[in-house]
């Protein structure tokens, strides 16, 4: 009896799609799909050397090597023990220290794993009150920043290497001068960091040199939001949203679900309310109004596309509705004060959204992006007041920050000649200061400019002195997390290249002797810590990484309506009918500070899937009207400045607006990122830090090649992601298991003998699509944990990216206003793995505990396994990416061989560094599993305790995930979290009809639309109608698989 199970047809117009080419069914897209590895991926191409030449060369070198058989003999290796034992260090074991990464929006509490004195991996500090042990992409990639071989290594004076003693002398000279004139002409420009020690040293400096100028600049800071908060609630007040308490959330131009820009606690708070385990459970609802698609927009139940300038009018209209519904006179006054202007959005959207928010008074929240002007910020605060958010979903905190001037004030002082000695500690203002300040030019007129930086960048080039900065993993310090808790910053390693920290420079300027070790921080600590036993408190501080009960105290939120009215009435709508250009933070390299970090550069932006570049995002409608296609170079002009950049058509983008992410187009970067992207900072002025209006756009006629990953290894529309509305889930909880083909398949039989899965533990993973934001933390965590090399832009373009986790991004619906879905795909560890049956050398086999193993030393690189993998998760090392410089990949044996010494230090010692010609893929972090098993056995010793229930093993992706969407564990243990998730009705296998029995399963995404909203009928139907829906018309029906489930379809 023959069973034919045809793959579902690819619909002519797919419901779920990954790129516009796929939606339009362009032949180029099919061609990419047809080839397992893209055109030429398997061929020797590029460079001047043909394959034949290469073989000749190789033959010759092998013949030479063969003489005397010297190449066959094992080289002599050495064991180099310590001269003197190092405290706590056990060779071969990780040693963990608590530390923290200072950030502008509050420190990221971390635990660093060090191996023989070198940090190799960072995890979140689970003890810290606002961390659940999770991290984000920036924290995961910080290790690579530390070992970055392009970091600056020497003190430079006017561009030439100088002696550190010369700099010390200069510092002393400046100090003596300041001592004499009270700090006249002395100025500092620093980054935001709530460091108690820095504050203490500043106070000390100010007491000695009362006339010094202290300025702070963050290109993506929250100056507008802070100004609004200060005006409405009094200075020194800060706000902390509590998404865990919010049933209804409206986010306007605010990507709060990106933990890098908000905080781990905000993502966790929101997604906790998104996680449902059984029908009937309530769920929060998210409204988003934004310009381009962000992860937050992808999670939205209702999303409105607005131009950045429309945030104000939108909130005004919403505010009037809310004021009417709640009878709040303060809000009414503020909304009236805000100047009226036309709004193109559907008024019903606003009315219904307002109704829904007002219906959950005290349990709703409105958040606005940090970049929006202060007038819009106060409007949102007034709405929150009317909604009763204060004290519930929005809490006040009393913060203590030293007063700091803005960069505008500093620039004015520089222009007026009031600055003679300027210290730029961190940051890169020449590159990222508002363009109208002409900061770089101003620097030329200052007699002494000292720059402390990790890299020799644009600012270093414009300064007289450059001093290498110590990375936060190399220096002592302290900082505060967003809630105000003081965190310890501990060095994991001595400065690799003689870097000094900001604190050391300030300390020297204060005339203090050079501190020994943590002395500086400890002095501050002594002034803060309570209790008699300071030594014990200090030890506890370092051990736990933070000082408990130091969070900012709560503050009552008394809304100052008059001030708010005044600010709101000052709002100016941009004039002119040109384009609005929104400046967005880069989800991968932030404001440009991580531009040298290959892990981050190679992480595809979640929405655009572009690596190593940024792009001008244009909506499909606008692109059509301008005749723009992906990769067209455009010239954007605003005022008298213009930039050139390449455009990309972005589904879901607001019409009439453009978005470009900041941080790219750096000019002073060496290495792989030297030509990455386009600099948008020249368009950004003090008049509009979030967006510039009335810009014009012109095609230059040139084309630019992006390296996108969105069409790599695409899996055609086969209901891989599954989604439903909350009401559908409540009616039919198992909808995900009967969707698409899954309702039709007869019981599966396998032709292959199954591996014996007889271990007491059986590993598996569940990924909850309801809470996955697509933030890429897992992708970078995996890269850090598993020694995954980067391949460079050119190789990514050829489809050779090595990342073991692919963050798939799907669009659903029409191209103008689609839904967006995220799905992390890694090796699914199929029980009937198709890769295993085709490997000619048994390099990929199954273990008794359900892992699909990859024995690198057996692999001969046939790539059959990758061809036969239905998930396309296997990665082939075409070149020796770990060993070769990325610009010499095609030089064959002439290429420089060997990794930079500092990069060797960054590798995880427990994972093989794979070589060329070897297939690799996700291992479920087998090194962590084996470590746990060994620990258990060692503990058992000569007893039978070696099978006690397993200590918790977390995979690196799970540990990093801020939303706890990835859960790994023993599926045979019914009490494990993963087993419980797999027992949920939302749980489904991808491509179930193939009978490969993947160990990784997904939990279908649930959306919670408000049926009164316009377009609500389209929300939550990403899968559309069932696969053979020819006769079903275009209507969105529930999958009707259930009635077929028992039907025998065998023929």
């Amino acid at each position, binding site marked *: 009896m023959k069973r034919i199970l045809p793959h579902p047809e690819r619909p002519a117009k797919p419901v779920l799609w990954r790129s516009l080419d796929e939606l339009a069914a362009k032949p180029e897209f099919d061609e990419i799909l047809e080839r397992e590895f893209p055109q030429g991926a398997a061929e020797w191409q590029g460079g001047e050397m043909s394959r034949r030449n290469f073989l000749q060369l190789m033959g010759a070198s092998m013949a030479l090597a063969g003489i005397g058989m010297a190449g066959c003999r094992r080289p002599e290796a050495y064991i180099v023990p310590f001269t003197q034992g190092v405290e706590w260090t056990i060779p071969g074991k990780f040693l963990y220290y608590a530390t923290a990464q200072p950030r502008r929006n509050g420190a990221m509490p971390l635990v660093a794993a060090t191996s023989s004195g070198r940090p190799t991996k960072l995890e979140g500090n689970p003890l810290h009150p606002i961390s659940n042990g999770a991290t984000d992409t920036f924290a995961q990639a910080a290790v690579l920043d530390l070992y970055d071989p392009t970091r600056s290594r020497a003190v430079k004076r006017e561009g030439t290497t100088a002696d550190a003693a010369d700099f010390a002398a200069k510092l002393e000279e400046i100090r003596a001068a300041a001592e004499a004139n009270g700090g006249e002409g002395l100025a500092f420009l620093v980054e935001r960091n709530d460091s108690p020690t820095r504050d203490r040293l500043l106070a000390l400096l100010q007491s000695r040199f009362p006339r010094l100028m202290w300025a702070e600049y963050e290109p993506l800071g929250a100056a507008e939001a802070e100004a609004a908060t200060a005006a409405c609630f009094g200075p020194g007040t800060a706000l902390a949203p509590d998404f865990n308490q919010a049933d209804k959330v409206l986010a306007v131009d605010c990507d709060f679900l990106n933990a890098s820009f908000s905080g781990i606690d905000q993502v966790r708070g929101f997604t906790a309310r998104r996680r449902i385990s059984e029908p009937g459970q309530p769920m929060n609802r998210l409204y988003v109004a934004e310009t381009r698609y962000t992860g937050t927009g992808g999670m939205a139940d209702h999303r409105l596309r607005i131009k950045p300038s429309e945030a104000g009018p939108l909130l005004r209209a919403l505010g009037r509705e809310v004021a009417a519904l709640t009878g709040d006179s303060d809000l009414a006054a503020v909304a009236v004060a805000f100047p009226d202007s036309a709004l193109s959005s559907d008024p019903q959207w606003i009315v219904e959204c307002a109704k829904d928010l007002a219906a959950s008074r005290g349990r709703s929240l409105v958040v606005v992006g940090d970049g929006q002007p202060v007038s819009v910020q106060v409007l949102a605060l007034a709405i929150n007041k009317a909604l009763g958010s204060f004290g519930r979903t929005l809490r006040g905190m009393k913060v203590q920050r030293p007063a700091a001037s803005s960069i505008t004030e500093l620039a004015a002082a520089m222009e007026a000649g009031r600055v003679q000695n300027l210290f730029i500690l961190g940051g890169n203002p020449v590159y990222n200061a508002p363009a109208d300040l002409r900061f770089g030019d101003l620097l030329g007129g200052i007699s002494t400019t000292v720059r402390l930086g990790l890299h020799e960048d644009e600012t270093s080039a414009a300064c007289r002195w450059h001093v290498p900065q110590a990375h936060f993993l190399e220096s002592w310090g302290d900082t505060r997390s967003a809630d105000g808790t003081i965190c310890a910053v501990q060095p994991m390693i001595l400065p690799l290249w003689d870097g000094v920290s900001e604190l050391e420079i300030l300390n020297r300027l204060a005339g203090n002797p050079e501190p020994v070790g943590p002395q500086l921080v400890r002095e501050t600590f002594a002034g803060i810590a309570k209790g008699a036993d300071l030594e014990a408190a200090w030890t506890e501080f370092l051990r736990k990484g933070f000082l408990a009960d130091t969070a900012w105290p709560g503050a009552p939120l008394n809304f100052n309506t008059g001030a708010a009215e005044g600010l709101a009435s000052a709002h100016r709508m941009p004039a002119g009918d040109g384009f609005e250009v929104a400046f967005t933070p880069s989800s991968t390299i932030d404001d440009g500070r991580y531009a040298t970090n290959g892990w981050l550069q190679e992480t595809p932006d979640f929405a655009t899937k572009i690596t190593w570049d940024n792009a001008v995002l244009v909506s499909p409608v606008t692109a059509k009207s301008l005749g723009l296609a992906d990769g067209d170079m455009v010239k954007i002009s605003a005022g008298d400045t213009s930039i050139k950049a390449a455009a990309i058509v972005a589904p879901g983008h607001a019409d009439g607006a453009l978005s470009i992410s900041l941080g790219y187009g750096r000019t002073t970067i060496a290495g792989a990122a030297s030509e990455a992207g386009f600099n948008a900072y020249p368009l950004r002025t003090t008049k509009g830090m979030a967006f510039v209006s009335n810009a014009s756009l012109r095609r230059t006629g040139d084309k630019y090649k992006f390296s996108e990953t969105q069409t790599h290894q695409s899996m055609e529309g086969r209901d891989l992601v599954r989604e439903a509305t909350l009401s559908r889930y409540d009616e039919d909880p198992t909808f995900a298991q009967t969707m698409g083909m899954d309702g039709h398949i007869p019981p599966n039989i396998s032709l292959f003998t199954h591996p014996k899965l007889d271990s007491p533990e059986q590993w598996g993973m569940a990924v909850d699509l309801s809470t996955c934001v697509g933030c890429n933390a897992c992708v970078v965590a995996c890269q850090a944990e598993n020694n995954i090399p980067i391949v460079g832009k050119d190789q990514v373009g050829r489809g050779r990216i090595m990342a073991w986790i692919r963050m798939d991004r799907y669009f659903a619906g029409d191209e103008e206003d689609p839904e967006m879905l995220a799905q992390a795909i890694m090796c699914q560890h199929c029980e009937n793995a198709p890769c295993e049956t085709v490997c000619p050398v048994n390099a990929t086999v199954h273990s008794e505990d359900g892992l699909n*193993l990859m024995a690198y030393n057996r692999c001969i690189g046939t790539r059959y396994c990758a061809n036969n993998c239905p998930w396309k998760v296997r990665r082939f090392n075409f070149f020796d990416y770990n060993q070769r410089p990325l610009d010499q990949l095609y030089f064959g044996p002439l290429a420089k061989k060997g990794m930079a010494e500092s990069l060797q230090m960054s590798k995880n010692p427990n994972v093989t560094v794979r070589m060329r010609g070897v297939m690799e893929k996700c291992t479920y972090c087998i090194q962590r599993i084996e470590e746990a098993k060994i620990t258990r056995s060692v503990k058992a010793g000569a007893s039978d305790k070696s099978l006690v229930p397993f200590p918790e093993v977390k995979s690196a992706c799970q540990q990093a995930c801020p939303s706890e969407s990835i859960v790994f564990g023993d599926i045979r243990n019914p009490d494990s979290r993963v087993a419980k998730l797999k027992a949920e009705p939302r749980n489904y296998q991808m491509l179930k009809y193939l009978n490969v029995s993947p160990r990784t399963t997904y939990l279908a995404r649930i959306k919670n639309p408000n049926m009164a909203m316009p377009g609500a009928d389209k929300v939550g139907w990403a899968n559309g109608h069932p696969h053979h829906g020819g006769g079903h018309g275009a209507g969105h029906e529930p999958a009707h698989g259930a009635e077929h489930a028992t039907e025998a379809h065998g023929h």
Partner: protein
Amino acid sequence: MANFFPSWTNWLPLKLLVIVFVLGGVVTAGIWYYFTPKYTNVGYMPTQPVPFSHAVHVEQLGMDCRYCHSYVEVAGHSNVPSTQTCMACHSQIKSASPKLAAVRESWATGEPVQWVRIHKAPDYTYFNHAVHVNRGISCYSCHGQINAMPVVYQAEPLSMSWCLDCHRAPENFLRPPAEVFNLNWRPASSADQLAMGAEYKKEWNINPPVTCGGCHR
């Protein structure tokens, strides 16, 4: 009669013969080489910077393995002692011996002694000392009679098949926990070993991994 075969074929049989001989030779040489202890480095005995004698320290002085290899029971890597460990005794004993010049120099300069590595698993193989010594496998099983070696050499091939011999039948090597670091201990007979090993294996749930992932990560 026309030539059926072009003239170059005249040399073909000879060429074939040469190729067969060369190929045969290569195969023979390959097998000869790869199956000899030379390839697996059994007997590899490099000259060390310090003529350290295990025989003197363990057999004559009765020192325990773990005095120097102090982390063998807790870490995957069995540490080679730091200079400090050597100097703990040798600052008093034989403090002027020329044989210890390298150790004293290391202590004075802070530069570590560079011992030549003898036992080496490939980089893609993760051997863990702690789990072996805690579960009844003696140092002896892999390092041989190292306690009696005046100069250390590699006693066993450390090849994968050699590893698997034990992983597939650990009962042949399991010994009483108290005798793990007693390298002179021998079972009364091979039958005794088998009986005792089988009992330990059952009692302690010894189930060494034989899948790739046990050692290759």
